[in-house]
């Protein structure tokens, strides 16, 4: 223990927070006082390096304080909350319907999934179900959104590691998805595509053709990404064995989504606890074995192919019928609470809603996959090099809007 201070060394509560410099200095003072067993052979002090919040590879406003021994990372601390907008508080002051668009602003690259989770949670609370046609539309859009999210992830992640071309490729192809969203509901990113009880919009003329055209178009494109990266020597060297997390650690840390699957846990909520009619579709859960950055890349690429499979089946089997269930005009779910979660592109996205019988939720808790997965960063970069931190932040696939809410 450092004798410089009587306070708990793990607490920065009485740090001078005026300037970042003074903060880092005090941080050094508090935390990095070399412990006898931590001394290196050069007996050098550890270096504390501030990364972010305005750092392009942090994918938003994430601040990471790195404790380094030369190039080696000894520990990290994430400072988050820069994008905190109090989404959960807002929910308590809006009606169930009014809150619906807000959820799009959490994981803003996968707004459709956010909306799907919220609408289904409220539907469960109301004890209603969306009609089959609405469920199919939801599945098609949610899977398109998963593709869009994975494409954005791949482009930016590869860019972080030094490959520029994939960014242009993925953004070019993601554009086609956004065009479909725009044609369907008028918005590209914050789509607000679904309503509680079903969908507001019927599919436009030629929706199915557009989607099928896209599926046909994008399959060879995904192979193109793979041609650029999968056996690329620089890519492999930068990702293989980097940011390894074992299945046991991943479960202990509550990590979900592709990160968990890359560690070898074959678990996907779409299969484990199907929602929105996912049990009707045939698809596989791709998994990795090593739990490293490379496997997470392979898992996400394979997931994109699976999403295309689901989309094809959904378009082929989309039933006729109403798109909106019987929903009361004034929504007053009975007193009670519900937890409902879906497989968002980033992992388990859960909504815990408490109703007091009024038109506004008494409490809405969002269980964000990005927030929980980000916690694993420290574990994943222990002993890695500084440059690997960038790779690992990218591979977790966080969206700070969802981390901070």
């Amino acid at each position: 223990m450092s004798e410089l201070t009587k306070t708990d060394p793990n607490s920065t509560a009485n740090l001078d927070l005026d300037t970042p410099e003074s903060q880092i200095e005090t941080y050094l003072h508090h935390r990095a006082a070399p412990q006898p067993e931590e001394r290196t052979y050069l007996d050098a002090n550890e270096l504390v390096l501030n990364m972010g919040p305005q750092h392009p590879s942090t994918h938003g406003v994430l601040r990471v304080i790195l404790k380094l021994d030369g190039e080696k990372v000894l520990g990290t601390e994430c400072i988050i909350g820069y994008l905190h907008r109090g989404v959960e508080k807002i929910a308590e002051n809006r009606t169930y319907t009014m809150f619906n668009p807000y959820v799009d602003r959490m994981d803003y690259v996968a707004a459709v999934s956010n909306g799907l989770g919220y609408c289904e949670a409220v539907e469960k609370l109301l004890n209603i179900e969306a009609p089959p046609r609405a469920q199919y539309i939801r599945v098609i859009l949610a899977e398109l959104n998963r593709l869009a999210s994975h494409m954005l992830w791949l482009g930016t992640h590869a860019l972080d590691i030094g490959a520029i071309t994939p960014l242009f490729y993925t953004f070019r192809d993601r554009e086609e998805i956004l065009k479909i969203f725009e044609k369907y509901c008028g918005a590209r990113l914050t789509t607000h595509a679904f309503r509680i009880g079903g969908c507001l919009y019927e599919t436009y003329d030629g929706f199915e053709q557009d989607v099928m055209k896209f599926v046909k178009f994008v399959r060879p494109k995904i192979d193109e990404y793979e041609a650029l990266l999968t056996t690329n020597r620089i890519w492999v060297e930068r990702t293989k064995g980097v940011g390894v997390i074992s299945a046991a650690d991943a479960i202990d840390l509550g990590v979900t989504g592709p990160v968990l699957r890359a560690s070898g846990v074959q678990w996907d909520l779409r299969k484990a606890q199907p929602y929105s009619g996912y049990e009707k579709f045939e698809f596989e859960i791709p998994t990795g074995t090593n739990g490293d950055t490379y496997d997470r890349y392979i898992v996400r690429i394979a997931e994109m192919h699976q999403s295309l499979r689901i989309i094809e089946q959904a378009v082929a089997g989309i039933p006729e019928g109403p798109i909106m269930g019987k929903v009361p005009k004034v929504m007053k779910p009975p007193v009670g609470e519900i937890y409902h979660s879906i497989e968002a592109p980033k992992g388990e996205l859960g909504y815990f809603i408490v109703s007091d019988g009024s038109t506004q939720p008494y409490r809405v808790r969002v269980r964000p996959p990005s927030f929980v997965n980000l916690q694993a960063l420290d574990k994943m970069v222990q002993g890695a090099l500084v440059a690997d931190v960038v790779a690992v932040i990218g591979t977790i696939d966080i969206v700070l809007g969802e981390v901070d809410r």
Partner: protein
Amino acid sequence: MTDEPKDQDRLNPHPETAGASQPTGQEKGAPKPAAASHSAPAKPAGPTPQPWEAEIVDRLRARLGSGIREANTYLGQNYFIVEPSVAYQVLELLHDEVEFDYLVDVTAVHYPEREYPFEVIWILYSFVRNERIRVKASYRENEPAPSAVSLWATANWLEREVFDMFGIRFDGHPDLRRILLPEDWQGHPLRKDYGIIQQDQQWVKINLGIESGQ
């Protein structure tokens, strides 16, 4: 909420419908009989929690007796309501012996009118059983809840967020600090007595150099 009527009005885009969206006691009572008179069957009282009977319940009851206050099923979801003092034992038992290896979420709900105003909720999932349950325990103001960090590492940030938003302390947490809000922020925003546009004006003034964050 009630002590800031002005802010409420400003935020409500349709002041004429303000009454309908305010969950105050008066309004809640008023529309109910009206709804019941013309469409009573359309709006049933809704499902009620049913007792949950399962092997885990018996096992926990055998071990902890009256510590397990209730075990219910609501809308197909199972949950325990436990005595605050045995909450950790329940979690430990579920983690070690019933294979609930994944802590999905830790959260809380504030009921200011209750004697035990802070309800802490642990959501657990078991990969082996493909089963999700909730454990709930209520705490007094300033009464710490047990930390689950020693059972699931994921509880670390989740508990920090609950502390940040509600001010509930977790006993045994290795590093209980605010996580989303600044360290020196005053107040806990998700408490019911914290207004929706309320801010720590002092903090805003000092750190952002502006009179108000609004």
